């Protein structure tokens, strides 16, 4: 500057502001530190430390998940331990039954003692059934997913009916690990022992409504695109057909027809595969998945049109129409009727009105003989299962009908029967009461194998409980570790914060003193 105004002068305003600014900065630091000290947290909002807060949020999530898994484990273990306890008690009752049986076999008995023994066994059985109807937190533990009703019931004829299903309750106990926390009646007491295993492959045909998910034995069709090259007059045309939004065969047919101009139909001769017509040659390839193969349409290179794909091999599902069964022949019996005898009860079931397997199953269940039908695990046939433990189940034709054999569920005239814990028990009760020594000794031998059922169920529970204990310990360790990490990230270091607080306090005092003195100084005092 050419003027007399130098650069090193300080204006009164800037001096004051400068001093004030210093005091404010110290004040702000003290406020921050105080707030950290009173809240105990170094990070109170994301911007305090964006990186630490993101990590802390992630850790909090892991911590919460881990805690939730342990809640699940505690709940599951409660159920399993209750079940273990129940099985122990039932095993004791079973042993006492055997003792009575052995006593009856060894000592001469009268009608009166036989009746008493039989009554004693009946009481033991009723007590066992009572225990099998054990609840944990208001939920029945041996009924599978039917947790609201007592799973076992002693019927008037002394047989025991199972009202549950074979679906266990599972809960997640760790990432991607679900653990079964109940044993179902069939698992613990072989409650669904008597089963007519369907012998016929019902091999259904397909129609437009057939869902893609049932094809290939229930494995379904992977979602993707196929590349179709067709040779028409004037050269080859390649089209990529997007089949990602298709749920049934009609969707696939419509989509390919629309996009390529070809004609896809369900093969009339076999009824279980697709046929493609149009053009002279045809080449169908995968674009991004295995969709073409899954639809049976993958051609190996160029083939002559029309082209018939391979068997779509649909699995049965409850909505499969009866008319598509058996290669599309359906049941040839004009009035398909079956006669089911379960224990002492017999019912005649007319399946004529059934449109789908679900309807047929409903009719069978509604026959009220404690029998139900289900699709077997391979999805190829149906099984008939008795709800009564150890009952004899007979499925017969009605008159000259053929429905039972067509469905593969026709039994020998004597029916089928498989042992089960409560079934055997009830048989022993009857045999002891009747004083039938040969039957009693046969049944005595069978008790061994039924006890194995109880013991192996108990062992399975033990194994699960141990696994849960280990997982729980792991979660607890993990929680301690995560707590430590989180604390390091977001909690305040008390020693450091206190020291900072002390230091800033001293600084503030010094600043206030110096400022007060400086502000008071003026040349005006001396002139």
């Amino acid at each position: 500057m050419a003027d007399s105004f130098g650069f090193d002068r300080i204006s009164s305003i800037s001096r004051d502001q400068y001093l004030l600014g210093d005091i404010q900065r110290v004040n702000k630091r003290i406020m921050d530190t105080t707030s950290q000290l009173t809240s105990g947290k170094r990070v109170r909002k994301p911007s305090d430390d964006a990186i630490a807060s993101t990590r802390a949020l992630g850790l909090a999530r892991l911590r919460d998940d881990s805690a939730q898994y342990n809640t699940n484990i505690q709940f599951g273990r409660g159920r399993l331990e209750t079940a273990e306890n129940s099985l122990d008690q039932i095993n004791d009752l079973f042993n006492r039954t055997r003792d009575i049986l052995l006593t009856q076999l060894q000592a001469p008995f009268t009608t009166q003692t036989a009746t008493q023994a039989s009554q004693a066994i009946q009481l033991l059985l009723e007590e066992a059934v009572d225990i099998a109807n054990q609840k944990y937190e208001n939920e029945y533990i041996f009924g599978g997913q039917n947790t609201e009703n007592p799973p076992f019931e002693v019927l008037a004829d002394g047989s025991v009916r199972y009202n549950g299903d074979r679906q266990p309750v599972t809960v997640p106990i760790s990432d991607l690990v679900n653990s079964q926390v109940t044993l179902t009646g069939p698992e613990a007491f072989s409650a669904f022992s008597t089963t007519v295993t369907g012998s016929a492959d019902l091999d259904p045909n397909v129609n437009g409504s057939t869902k893609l998910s049932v094809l290939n034995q229930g494995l379904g069709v992977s979602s993707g695109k196929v590349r179709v090259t067709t040779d028409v007059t004037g050269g080859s045309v390649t089209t990529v057909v997007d089949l990602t939004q298709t749920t049934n065969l009609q969707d696939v047919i419509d989509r390919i027809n629309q996009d390529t101009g070809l004609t896809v139909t369900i093969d009339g001769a076999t009824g279980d595969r697709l046929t493609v017509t149009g053009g002279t040659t045809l080449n169908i390839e995968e674009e991004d998945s295995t969709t073409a193969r899954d639809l049976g349409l993958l051609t190996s290179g160029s083939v002559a049109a029309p082209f018939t794909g391979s068997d779509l091999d649909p699995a049965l599902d409850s909505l499969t129409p009866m008319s598509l069964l058996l290669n599309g022949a359906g049941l040839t019996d004009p009035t398909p009727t079956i006669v089911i005898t379960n224990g002492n009860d017999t019912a005649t079931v007319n399946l004529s009105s059934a449109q789908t397997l679900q309807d047929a199953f409903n009719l069978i269940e509604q026959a009220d003989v404690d029998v139900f039908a289900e699709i077997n695990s391979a999805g190829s046939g149906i099984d008939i299962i008795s709800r009564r433990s150890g009952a004899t189940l007979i499925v017969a034709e009605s008159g000259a009908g053929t429905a039972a054999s067509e469905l593969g569920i026709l039994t020998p005239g004597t029916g089928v029967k498989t042992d089960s814990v409560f079934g055997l028990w009830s048989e022993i009760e009857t045999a002891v009461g009747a004083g039938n020594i040969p039957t009693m000794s046969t049944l005595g031998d069978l008790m061994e194998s039924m006890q194995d059922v109880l013991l192996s169920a108990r062992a399975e529970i033990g194994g699960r409980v141990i696994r849960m204990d280990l997982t729980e310990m792991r979660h607890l360790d993990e929680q301690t570790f995560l707590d430590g990490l989180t604390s390091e990230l977001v909690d305040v270091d008390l020693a450091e914060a206190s020291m900072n607080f002390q230091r800033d306090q001293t600084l503030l005092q010094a600043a206030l003193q110096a400022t007060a003195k400086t502000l008071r100084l003026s040349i005006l005092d001396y002139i």
Partner: protein
Amino acid sequence: MTDLFRALSVGTNALEANQSALQTIGHNIANANTEGYHRQRAHLSATPSYDFFLHQIGTGVSVDRVRRALDVTLERSVRESLGQQASYQKRMETLTRIEDVFNEFNTGALTNSLQDFFDALGDLSTHPEDQGARVQLVGMGEILADRIQYIGSRLQMERSQLNDTIEATVTQMDEYTSQVASLNKEIVVLENGGSDNGAANDLRDRRDLFVQRIGEMLDIRVTESTNGSINVSHNGIFLVSGGSYFPSGTSLTIDDGVAESTLSVGGAPLSPSSGSLHGLLEARDTLVPHFENQLRDFSRTLGFEFNKIHSSGFGSQLYSTLTSTESLHDKNLSSTAAGGGIPLAVRGQVSTGGFSNQFNDTTFSGATNDRFVGLEVLALSGSNAGERRTVTDYVDATGQFIFEEGFDHNFTAGDTYQISSLPFAVQNGSFDITFLQDSTGVEKTFTIEVDLDGAPSGVASPPFHDDDHLQDIVNDINSQLQTFYGAGSEPIVAEITSDNRFRLRNQISGYSFGFSNDTSHLLAAVGMGTFFTGDNARNFALNDLISQNPGLVATGNTTRAGNNQVALLLAGIRDKTVFDGTPSTLSTYLTSLLSDLGTQTAGARELHENQSVLTDNLENRRQQISGVNIDEEATELIRFQRAFQGAARFIRVIDELLATLIQST
């Protein structure tokens, strides 16, 4: 004698000059604390001397000029720095407020509500038959929905308040520009049209202060004319030109529920690159919408993904009559709807983009011009994915769609979209309805096709072929039920209500129903058997049916009480891949949103602090030059006081000399 009189006038001049200097010092002291004041100095200079034989004899002193001490370049730097600081400050303030709205790490934070909700879901999955666990989940769901709604509305309110501040700021700016213009006039007069350039110190101080304040609002360029007036312009748009100023104008457009002002001066749009207006506009148009959009995507995705699974499951209680939460547009009802029917949802691909409020797709040409008017376009991919706008015009010949309000981004050719009145994406597929006869426990399942494949099944009838309208779904249900149960004996009747909702109405008591396997997502989109309702954060809520009856919360994929398969699937939603790209899950999306917020807030604070330091430095330098130092002024005071005293003594001496002469002659 003449020389003595001349000497006397030297003394008088000196008295006058020093007095002026003293007065200037007094003025400085008086204004030591006045904002925008620049200290002034009286510049003295010796008056011309006269010849005395071989010598030049001085004639004394006079005040040459009184001028402000200032550095023009520095003034400009301070102004620009203040502008930048104001912009950063608005950014920081907005982000801090957004952070406060999210209130993370404190009770009731969104992550906590979400965690509590999923914990409750975890508990329910272990006790699906427990009514208490259902009530707990519904309670947590309500808290979560309230939280999302609260944040959503607060963000919208923030945007609306920012707009109010913008309006107030430009009003203030107009006030400042008018002040500058009127000061311009006064200065030109006072400085005699430029011949005394710089003389109007105090008016210039005031004018500089106003210019600085304008500079704190937006980036400006200031040029001074030779007559002393200044022109203020922004991006070549004149705000002040000499004695005239140009007031700002605003026009309102609706953006996502808020009336937003577009600023202009003389018809030319203002686009500040610094200043508080820049900060405010950036906050209103970029910052807040950024978090609003993220929250919208989060809540939409959470709601829809949850509903997709929930509407395909069974609770401890099933439905007897059920009405959809969404109401459809007339056009989606049937192919014979007035103005031409449109299937439930039509998918398409943008062929020509480039604009945010329109695009072209000729696929559906061949009908009337207003074919799609009134329906909504939902962007399925591209930068607008998840956004919806109503079609206000459709030009059939060009396939041009025009929207009532622009999307956030321009469309790009290849972006996919859906036209429908449904708020979510539906697709070709099917769903199952299962009827449970309460007395027997017998279940009967029907599969309902939702044909939306855009392909003919038989005779082609482009462009929509035989794709389903709502009436087709209704007919399908009724016809399947009639075939099985017999006309008049169907447990329910499917129908369309007078307000265009989809309803399954109970006809025969003793039956209840539920849904499963919905691959079309129609149920979730139309709001049947859903848990959440709403299509953005602000209307995100629990389905009333669920709130009133927690038994309807779906837990199983069968009607068995202990079946927890659906509850487990729902609990797993947080970690399912539901977004394209990273972050891909709801859980990481929220963490990343909060991390983004934290980083941006911390960054804004740092920028603001750095800029403040810079401004302080510049301000200090300006004060070094222009600020008043009382001690300095006091020193000067003594100096000129002494000079004044000297001059007075000199006059006395000359007086005595004159007296001597008079008496002695």
